[in-house]
């Protein structure tokens, strides 16, 4: 399988009035063509910031991308997303990489019809004429499962229900048949049944069109249902990346373990207390020169407080950034 996206050492910082926020401290991962990669992490872990950095969607005065590369391997060649200028990146956005945002109500222009908002993309990237656009818009709306598409394309976002709106968002993102679609917590604001529908829809579209999907979420349940591989982030760094089954069966990083333990289980004998990870979110303004997770890690030992752990392999396609070996219950010696 060929990687379609290769991100290495992405560093992004926000220069604010109160100080510098080190949002991303060297993020690396890759995305294979046609696969679904889930990115998991708590608020502030940098999952959204990573994606938005790739497409230059962060407000640039406070934000600065300060390092790394993001190689996008397209049919027409390889480009480094981070090095593109405004004109070039605007051709990639929407045309070759689509974005689905979390809250469809605020992510859609309230005074423009839904059809028009989809058509904008089509006009821009595919150069379709008026009538062609209209037909394709109806087609797209039907494909994402909106009943009465032939009339509803003239409606405004507020006239749709939450789930329907999210489908519209999907239509907007997929309009020009992009190679990659990035979905930033698309189902977080929806209730569970609708969530399932959206997940199903995404998978179906993905199969049909062969799109690679990056799905950002903090919900491990969704991850289990949709992902091929999972990337776990903490404090602006990737801490674990693994194929989905491996992650759930043999988690390697203490944070991942903590996350999985925190999930209430149906099969737990008796009613046990919910286990949570101790401590509070990390301070991104003063990143330490050692493992960011050390304060909350139950396995932390001396080395964890002195150096930043490198990425090590613990299985096929399974890497973690940690000094400890959870399986053998002792520090790793090959690091």
């Amino acid at each position, binding site marked *: 399988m060929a990687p379609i996206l290769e991100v290495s050492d992405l560093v992004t910082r926000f220069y604010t009035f109160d100080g510098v926020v080190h949002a991303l401290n060297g993020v690396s991962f890759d995305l294979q063509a046609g696969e679904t990669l889930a990115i998991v992490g708590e608020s502030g872990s940098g999952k959204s910031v990573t994606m938005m950095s790739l497409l230059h969607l962060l407000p640039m005065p406070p934000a600065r991308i300060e390092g790394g590369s993001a190689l996008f391997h397209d049919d027409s060649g390889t480009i480094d997303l981070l090095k593109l200028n405004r004109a070039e990146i605007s051709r990639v956005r929407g045309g070759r990489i689509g974005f689905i*945002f979390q809250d469809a109500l605020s992510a859609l222009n309230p*005074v423009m019809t839904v059809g028009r908002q989809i058509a904008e993309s089509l006009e*821009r990237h595919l150069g379709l004429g008026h009538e062609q656009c209209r037909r394709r818009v109806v087609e797209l709306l039907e494909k994402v499962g909106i009943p009465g598409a032939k009339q509803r394309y003239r409606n405004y976002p507020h006239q749709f229900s939450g789930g329907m709106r999210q489908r519209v968002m999907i239509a907007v993102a997929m309009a020009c048949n992009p190679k990659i679609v990035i979905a930033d917590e698309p189902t977080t604001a929806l209730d569970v049944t609708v969530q399932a529908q959206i997940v199903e829809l995404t998978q179906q579209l993905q199969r049909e069109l062969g799109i690679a999907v990056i799905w950002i979420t903090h919900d491990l349940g969704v991850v289990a249902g949709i992902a091929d591989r999972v990337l776990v982030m903490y404090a602006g760094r990737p801490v674990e990346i693994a194929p989905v089954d491996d992650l759930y069966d043999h988690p390697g990083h203490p944070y991942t373990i903590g996350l999985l333990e925190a999930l209430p289980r149906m099969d737990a004998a008796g009613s046990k207390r919910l286990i949570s990870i101790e401590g509070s979110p990390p301070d991104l303004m003063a990143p330490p020169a050692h493992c960011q997770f050390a304060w909350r890690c139950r396995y932390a030992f001396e080395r964890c407080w002195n150096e930043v752990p490198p990425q090590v392999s613990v299985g096929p396609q399974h890497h973690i950034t940690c000094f400890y070996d959870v399986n053998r219950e002792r520090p790793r010696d090959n690091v």
Partner: protein
Amino acid sequence: MILFGVLFIIFFMLQATGDPVSLMVSRNASPEEIEAVREAMGFNRPLIVQFGDFIAGAVVGDFGDSLRHKQPAMDLILERLPATVELATTALFMAMLIGIPLGLLGGSNPGSLWDTLARGAGLIGQTIPNFWLALILIIVFAVKLGWLPAFGRETWQFLGITLPTRSVILPAFALGLFTMGQLVRFTRSAVMEIRSEDFVRTAYSKGLSDRQIYIRHILRNAAIPLISIIGVQFGYLLSGSIYIETICSWPGLGNLLAEAIGNRDFALVQAIAFFTSLVVVTLNLLTDIAYGLADPRIRYGD
């Protein structure tokens, strides 16, 4: 409903603040003379009757005759109205011409020179009292430089329509300064706010050009509340012209009001107060309607 309240307030205020008759006659009038006037004007009738009469008259636009001018108050008002409308409209136009583009430029380029100019303009509009500005403008433009006429209104006739001449420029500019300030501030903050909205980010994520995003997404959203602001400001301009008209001898409603107050011509004052309120309230109503039509969330709300 509101109009009734307005009438009530006007009437009530007049009655409650002292004997209107003694305000109207000269100080040397004897008690008999005062009584005579009181009776002639009907002020000795029970209050309720007077109020009823007032309302009845108001409905048909009859506010009684102006004391000074010996003409029906309403006629005087209508006679002076076009001048004020001309002044207010010109002021609004000037304010929009300067204020809106400046606000747009400032809001789209925060921290830039345009932004500083926009904020400065907003501040100027807020802090310079229009009557003082009129005085200064007169000193500078009319007296020292002699470019613009300072007093009176000149018009020219074209195909039967009365059109303004440059005599309106100075007064309109002074009157419109505050509005200009409001427009700059609003437009600037609207643009700044909208730029950080989620849907603008979505627009960027679709790869649209800056210009497309600006016009279709940012401007379109800013324009809707702008309608409200413009409507309200127009009402303000129409009703707040008293100082400018007095200073520049502009023959409009404001001037009439000042005169009426000076002459203790309360029938006229009441009439003007009511009429102005009527205009402003109606204008607000129309603005609300326009807003409702323009915003699809309201028009197609469910």
